[in-house]
């Protein structure tokens, strides 16, 4: 069975700075992979390359065997991206924003889908309000709704729980788990990341530091993480 995502020898340089050095990893179908690492380890850079916002200097990424360079639009139609910036237009209403993205992603029956997600995220009553009037937590919830509009099979998340209270976090994972998805996320909180993921990777200084094949005990993960901080 093909891997959902296969990263091979990914390198990314910014002029003289090597942000990613020969990173290779695999995300198996329907598994949740958590990426940890110190500040500047390359987590965000890696996610940006996976979401095609950034180009790699060398190496390649395959999605279900497909090369991003060859058929980006087909691959992107199955990917949802959640970042700590919301990708939302503050002058537009919540409904405007979701309608816009639903059209870009050719979501079928979009009005139904939009209403469903708004209700699930507790934003139905604020549907006609401009996003600029939303609190940070509400914007993040709306951003999650945006990412799930097209029901993607792959989700890329950069610090998804920042700005969310417990209830919102619960709803996030409820919605994510509604369907079988492959999820790659970064998390600053080791315990929380451990709880939601099936496998982990620790990055340090742009390289893969620790990548066990299966879900190891939390203590082992914590030890490895402390060790990675020494390298930083």
């Amino acid at each position, binding site marked *: 069975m093909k891997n959902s995502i296969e990263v091979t020898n990914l390198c990314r*340089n*910014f*002029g*003289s*700075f090597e942000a990613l050095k020969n990173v290779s990893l695999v995300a198996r179908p329907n598994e949740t992979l958590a990426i940890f690492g110190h500040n500047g380890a390359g987590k965000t850079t890696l996610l940006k390359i996976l979401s095609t916002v950034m180009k790699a*200097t060398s190496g390649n990424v395959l999605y279900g065997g497909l090369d991003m360079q060859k058929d980006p639009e087909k691959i992107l139609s199955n990917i949802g991206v959640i970042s700590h910036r919301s990708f939302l237009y503050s002058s537009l209403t919540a409904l405007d924003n979701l309608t816009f993205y639903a059209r870009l992603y050719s979501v079928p029956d979009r009005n139904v889908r939009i209403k469903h997600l708004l209700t699930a995220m507790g934003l139905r009553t604020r549907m006609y309000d401009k996003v600029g009037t939303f609190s940070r937590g509400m914007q993040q919830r709306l951003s999650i709704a945006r990412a799930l509009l097209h029901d993607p099979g792959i989700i890329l998340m950069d610090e998804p729980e920042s700005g969310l209270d417990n209830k919102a976090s619960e709803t996030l994972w409820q919605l994510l788990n509604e369907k079988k998805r492959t999820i790659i996320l970064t998390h600053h909180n080791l315990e929380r990341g451990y709880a939601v993921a099936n496998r982990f990777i620790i990055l340090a200084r742009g390289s893969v530091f620790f990548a066990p094949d299966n879900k190891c005990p939390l203590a082992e993960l914590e030890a490895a993480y402390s060790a990675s901080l020494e390298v930083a």
Partner: protein
Amino acid sequence: MLQGGFMKRKILFALSSVLILLSFYMVLVYVPTEKNMGIVQRIFYYHVPLAWVAFLAFFVVFICSIMYLVKRNQKWDYIAHASAEIGLVFISLMLVTGSIWAKPAWGVWWIWEPRLTTSLILWFIYVAYFIVRGYISGEERKARFGAVVGIIGFLNVPLVFLSVTLWRTQHPPLTIFSGGLEPSMLLTLLVCLFAFNFLYFYLLAEGAMMKEDEYNINLLKDKFARRNN
């Protein structure tokens, strides 16, 4: 990468030095004074090669910009960046010598004729190249955005020339020379042209190498800083 070719650069240096010294002799001593404009006309022998190199340099920026965007190899950016620096100097000198020549020749410091106006616009495009690079962080982005300015700017130059030419046909055209160039004048001009061409290529080779050195020094600085964190 560009470190090789030490001999070639020495040869270029020697050639350009000899030719420039020769050009001094030819422009100041050998060539006869032009009958209409007098001594100041001798600036022409430098003004024209300066213009030629300024435009040649930008053509090189254009080609290297395309190559950089296609191949993403930093060496193309070294050459483009160096060429832009040299080109900016040469085009500034060209505009200044043009002005110095224009005042005694036509009575005005500046005239909106096609070649001068196009050169003025090119000067601004050169400046834009450096301003864009200056206000961006990250060497890779500097190279990328610089390349875009180089390409768009170069495509613009013929259009500027065309539009100004059309604009100025509504005014009497300029005569630079009544009659052709005497053989001695032509020879002098050619010597100066060759001299400046070789000078350009020499400066380009040295300049591109310096850019590469800068890049490598930054690489080392970065590694050193992180080791001592």
